[in-house]
């Protein structure tokens, strides 16, 4: 730094340095654990206990990934998670869109009451319902099936609320003009309302995806022995339980499970932020 720089500028530059230092420190705290996990998963097992811990895998080893993938059955678990998540996201988008349209555009007795009923579901945490839900699912013969995994999540009060807000932004005149053109409600919904509400639908989709993919409690309850519907989160638990001696395989599995979601974050950050801050912060 030139010594003849004006003091104001020097102070500003110093503050900038402090800020970037703090930011980088924050980044290390947040990303450090994941970074070390990636590094460790690529190290040969013998290097894991090395101190100080290696910060870069000089000779990356990929066989732990192969082991987690095939012996840890992560290939099957990832497929199951994709199916489970796909069903839940599609289901929530459809049921929320339909209900939100009714609440925003149609007049029928008890509409307000029913909307309150939808909102009331937000007050009941899922954890509170598992006692009876686990019995219901086995009574229906849905234990260890995709139906058992997904059907309880095919509707969402939050999603309905979010989409209703979006539909209410659509000018009434548009509906009237469309009606004059002979558009019935369903055609108007598909051709006009849904395309106009695309940002909210995307936000809900990303939110549902994240919530479904990361579910732990319910898959733990309704998936049993065998790999046929077990999701990747439960797969990780089993990897930890059975392969304790192979820490590096466990870590490789962890990386495999989290990478798709990090990609999702980078691509859909805007939608995700929108859904997470939805009702509370404008």
């Amino acid at each position, binding site marked *: 730094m030139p010594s003849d720089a004006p003091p104001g500028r020097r102070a500003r530059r110093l503050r900038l340095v402090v*800020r970037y230092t703090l*930011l980088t420190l*924050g*980044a290390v705290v*947040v990303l450090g654990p*994941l970074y*070390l*996990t990636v590094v*460790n998963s690529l190290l040969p097992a013998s290097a894991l206990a090395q101190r100080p*811990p290696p910060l870069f895998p000089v000779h990356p080893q990929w066989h732990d990934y192969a082991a987690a993938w095939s012996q840890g059955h992560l290939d099957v678990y990832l497929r199951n998670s994709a199916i489970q998540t796909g069903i839940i996201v599609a289901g929530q988008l459809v049921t929320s869109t*339909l*209900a939100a*349209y*009714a*609440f925003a555009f*149609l*007049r*029928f007795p008890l509409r307000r009451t029913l909307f309150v009923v*939808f909102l009331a*579901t937000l007050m009941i*945490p899922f*954890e*509170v*319902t598992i*006692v*009876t*839900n*686990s019995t*219901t699912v086995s009574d229906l013969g849905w234990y260890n099936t995709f139906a058992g995994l997904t059907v*309880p999540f095919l*509707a*969402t009060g939050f999603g*309905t609320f979010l989409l209703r807000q979006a539909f209410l932004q659509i000018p009434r005149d548009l509906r009237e003009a469309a009606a004059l053109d002979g558009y019935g*409600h*369903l055609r108007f919904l598909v051709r006009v309302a849904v395309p106009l509400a695309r940002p909210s639908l995307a936000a809900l989709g990303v939110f549902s995806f*994240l919530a479904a*993919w*990361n579910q*732990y*409690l319910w898959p733990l*309850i309704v998936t049993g022995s065998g790999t046929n519907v077990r999701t990747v*989160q439960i797969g*990780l*638990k089993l990897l*930890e339980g059975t392969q304790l001696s192979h*820490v590096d395989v*466990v*870590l490789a599995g*962890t990386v495999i*499970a*989290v990478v798709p979601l*990090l990609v999702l*974050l*980078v691509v859909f950050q805007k939608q*995700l*932020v929108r859904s*997470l*801050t939805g009702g*509370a*912060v404008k």
Partner: protein
Amino acid sequence: MSRRRRVREAALGYLLVLPALCVFAVFVFYPFAQNFRLALFQAPPFPGLPSRYVGLHQVGQVLTSSSFLESLVATVLFVVMVVPAGLLIGLLLAVAAHRRLRGMAVYRVIFSSTVVTSVAVSALVFGTLMDPVVGLLPWLGLNPSPPILQNTTWALPAIAVMAVWQFLGLSFIVMSAGLSSIPEEVLEAARVDGASERTVFWRVTVPLLSPTIFFGTVVATIYAFQTFGQVDILIGPTNAAFEHVNLLVYNILNTIEIARTTGQAAVLSIVLFLLTLGVTLLQLRLVERRVHYAQ
């Protein structure tokens, strides 16, 4: 509008609401209401026999049981450890990243990144870092005995560290959104009046951020109430430290799956519901009061 059209519109309305309503009826309201009925019945000593009506006896029994009290203490301690830390660090990160500077987009993605991690991922990542053999703790001079995840004192704080880390992403996102909703002119006006950056932060930013902080507190508390996965994966019911980390949801799960006493699990579920409801109502009251001040 003709009567026939009105009837048709109403019919369509019900039809569109119906799918979601069916799911809610079967998987939200029915099981919720069932809790109150199940709480009054005691499970039979052998499966297959009918349940016995015991009235409030079972409720009293559960609420005074040592397992419930352990859970309540652990859950409250856990909330106290997770909520302030999670919100404060999230706020610090949000404040640090709240400038239009080069590279800020990258920092934002990094700071929000833990929002996509699952409980299983956070458990395995930190389980390894805290492992007494391959982990980093001994190297850092932290080597409690018994090892941290079997240690009656340190197991709960260890789980709290994992939960805080996993919550940071959401905390950062919520706090950032709150910060960007504060009009820049207000801050600028305070600076023009000669307020230092610190005064601006504490006297202008934080008060204007208070709705966000309240919202964050509720989200964080509910998140902490629902945590149990890390305990399930890393500690489990046979661990020496178990009773110190037997968080409420884990207790409910084990009461269903291991003890198979649905009545007791129902009582615990009602308690969890009331705790969550209490926090939510408290938030509403606080926000309401703030709105009154503003008038």
